[in-house]
């Protein structure tokens, strides 16, 4: 029963992939191509999701991270290339736009800390990034960089504990999980400064 389901899913995903790449091939406008890149990312994640085991989750999480970073980078490149240099004026002045970034960022950061590890760092980092993009920033980024560097060192230390003192594996798991959380979060939140600012 499992194998026909997987084959069907694979067939459908291949068909969807074909349609998505066909649309990509026919498209000439840069922005539309950017949106189609997003579509292709969704379809390719469906391929991975079809595996349906823990391996699928382990593969989807870095896929999402790379996809987001790629989208942010490509959107910036496209913006510079097309010469959209004039900043948009403050558009929608409604209450929810003022309060939403804080609440959403807090939820994402808390969920990221609960997840911990690499994917937790990404989720928490996205929360910080979202907040920085919405609210502006005047933090000192050397501080974030320093925290990131120390947590990287702690991550390496945790690996040495795994190798040299394997009986303390639980401590090492906790250490590496929280260190990589801080590391990835710091790196992701730096993207939030791409709007430009005094310390960026």
């Amino acid at each position: 029963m499992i194998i026909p389901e997987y084959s069907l899913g694979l067939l459908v995903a291949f068909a969807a992939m074909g349609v998505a790449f066909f649309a990509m091939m026919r498209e000439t406008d840069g922005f539309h191509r950017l949106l189609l890149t997003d579509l292709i990312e969704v379809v390719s994640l469906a391929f991975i999701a079809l595996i349906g085991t823990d391996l699928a989750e382990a593969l989807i999480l870095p896929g999402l991270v790379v996809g987001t970073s790629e989208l942010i980078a490509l959107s910036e490149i496209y913006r510079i290339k097309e010469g959209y240099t004039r900043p948009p004026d403050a558009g929608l002045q409604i209450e929810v736009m003022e309060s939403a970034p804080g609440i959403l960022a807090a939820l994402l950061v808390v969920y990221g800390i609960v997840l911990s590890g690499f994917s937790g760092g990404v989720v928490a980092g996205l929360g910080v990034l979202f907040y920085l993009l919405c609210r502006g920033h005047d933090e000192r980024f050397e501080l974030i960089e320093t925290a990131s560097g120390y947590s990287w060192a702690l991550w390496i230390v945790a690996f040495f504990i795994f190798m040299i003192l394997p009986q303390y594996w639980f401590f090492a798991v906790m250490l590496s999980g929280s260190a990589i959380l801080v590391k990835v979060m710091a790196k992701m939140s730096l993207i939030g400064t791409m709007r430009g600012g005094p310390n960026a």
Partner: protein
Amino acid sequence: MNTTFILGLAILVIGVLSVAFVRPKTYVARLINLEIPAWGLLLVMLAYDEALALMTFVAVTAISTFVIVRLMEWRDASC
């Protein structure tokens, strides 16, 4: 055969078609239609109990929509 899985695959195909051949061909229409294949993918993940991947996908989709809308704002301000 799992109903959630079949529904997810159907919505995935419908969504891909609606994004690939979008009418009217505007950026906003295509961005809104992008939510449909995302729903299909979410149902496929739900069918296989991939809770962690599902929730992370929801969080990441919110940010990618935000990034694209921001790019549209810059575009409108400069054109």
